[in-house]
């Protein structure tokens, strides 16, 4: 029996998603057909709604359903500290940890000529505009600790060294609650290079 054309199309569309192979796509497609019709329609509708309403914040390029996202619009946040990330997802991760009270800027990638990503294709000019219009005190570079993330960090560092008083880079090394035995040698080497004087919170 031939698989109906619309089902083939559904499978092929699902297989385009990251982390989904042909087999998983097939399983998902069949599962969508076997469930209650309403479940599948709800999913379809939520995809449409999300795609139609969510756009990039015109200020930080994070995801938002308004022109300016909640974070950029929030007067309680410190607008003089900008945290630069590669990906809108990173904002959610950092927000979940409640460690940062400034605002964000999403580059939408990291410099990688091999993949055709140059500084011009990233939202770097936009960051420059933003800083020119309202000067900031600190730029926290939180690109990934990959070679490409590092290259991007260096690029930003050179670009803003005269216009931003403090430029910082998030630390690399051992994960909290981690076990030495599970760290790869590269991570350990970085952790040792970046070791710092031991401080206790309370001076006795």
């Amino acid at each position, binding site marked *: 029996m031939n698989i109906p054309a619309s089902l083939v199309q559904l499978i092929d569309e699902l297989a385009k998603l990251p982390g989904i192979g042909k087999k998983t796509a097939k399983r998902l497609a069949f599962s969508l057909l076997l469930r209650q019709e309403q479940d599948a329609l709800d999913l379809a509708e939520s995809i449409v709604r999300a795609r139609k309403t969510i756009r990039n914040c015109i200020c930080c390029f994070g995801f938002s359903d308004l022109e300016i996202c909640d974070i950029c619009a929030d007067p309680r946040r410190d607008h003089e500290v900008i945290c630069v990330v590669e990906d809108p997802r990173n904002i959610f991760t950092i927000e979940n940890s409640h460690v940062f009270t400034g605002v964000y800027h999403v580059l939408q990638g990291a*410099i990688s000529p*091999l993949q055709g990503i*140059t*500084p011009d294709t990233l939202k770097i000019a936009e960051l420059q505009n933003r800083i020119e219009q309202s000067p900031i005190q600190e730029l926290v570079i939180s690109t990934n600790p990959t070679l490409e993330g*590092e290259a991007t960090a260096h*690029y930003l560092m*050179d670009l803003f060294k005269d216009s931003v008083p403090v430029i910082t880079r998030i630390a690399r090394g051992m994960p909290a609650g981690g076990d030495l035995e599970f760290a790869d040698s590269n991570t350990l*080497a970085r952790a040792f290079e970046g070791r710092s004087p031991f401080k206790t919170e309370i001076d006795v």
Partner: protein
Amino acid sequence: MVIHSLNLVDFRNYKNIDVEFNSGINFIYGLNGQGKTNLIESLYLITHLKSFRTSKIGDLNSFSKKGSTVQTGLSKQNVRHDIRITLHENQKKVLHNRKIVNYSSEYIKNFLSLLFSPDQLVAFKEFPLERRNFIDRILFLTDEKYFQKIKEFNRIKKQKNVVLRGGHRKDLFVWNKLLAAIIPDIVKVREEIVEKINTLLPDIFTALTGRKDCLQFSYGNDLKNKTEPLPESILAFLLTKVDKEIGNGHCLFGPHKDNYWMTLDGRKDRQTFSQGEYRIAYLSLQLAMNKVVTTVLGFKPILLLDDIFSELDEKVSEKTVSHIVERENQVFVTSTGIPEKFLDVGTGICVSNGSLSIM
């Protein structure tokens, strides 16, 4: 490290052989075209997971059949390892102690053999890349950090090449900066190993030849006479070469252009060594490397000496054998004639048309 037993099925000209080896010296002899080098090749495959004669796995299968297996029991630092390598068309599957090996790069860190073969000698003599690979293979084994640095260096170089080909001058700075930061670390490790080799090399050369001239291994750091070995100076230098590099479309300066060579009392190898001198010098280098890695790794690599007697004169051959006896490595030596005078220090294995007999 010692290879105790070997079983080859449909490998090159071997249909099905089982052989037990001496933990000292094994003399493999037989007429031309009987399979001596094939045996050496199978042992090299065990430690390197590739051949030194071909890049195609399919070539290792015997003519008639499609798949072949190499199975061996070896021991290293008192631990026994069972290894089974199955070659099918152009695929290989490796079982190490009955577990599937997913990454060759992880597997080959466990074992090591040093090879002297006429082909290898020519490649070493002709191509700087071969010489860099020879040193790097050892360094990858002994220095995990160096392995990571080279991986990173290659990635930066690849990214920079794309920028150079595109002629994007202003995007180049960051890649030059990253290169400048990593180059001194690579150069330092290379300098150190050459220094270590040079503490051993003259004595080994003298032991093999009875000659007093001083054999030295030299490292030609590409950036040496161009700049100081500091990130800032390297960056400044690279910035002066931007036009030239954009013109060529690839990285022109750095450790990927480094070279190594040998000298005898200051005479440079390629220009002034005789054929014989080069062979002995190369063999001395392998034997010096043997000592260096033994100290660092804590085990003795296997020495594979293919066709060594036809390459060296009688006196040097004798001295080589007695040097090897002292070092206590497991050694495999091939020759066309029966090495009668050496048989008391090792085992003779006669190869005849794909079958082996121990003498």
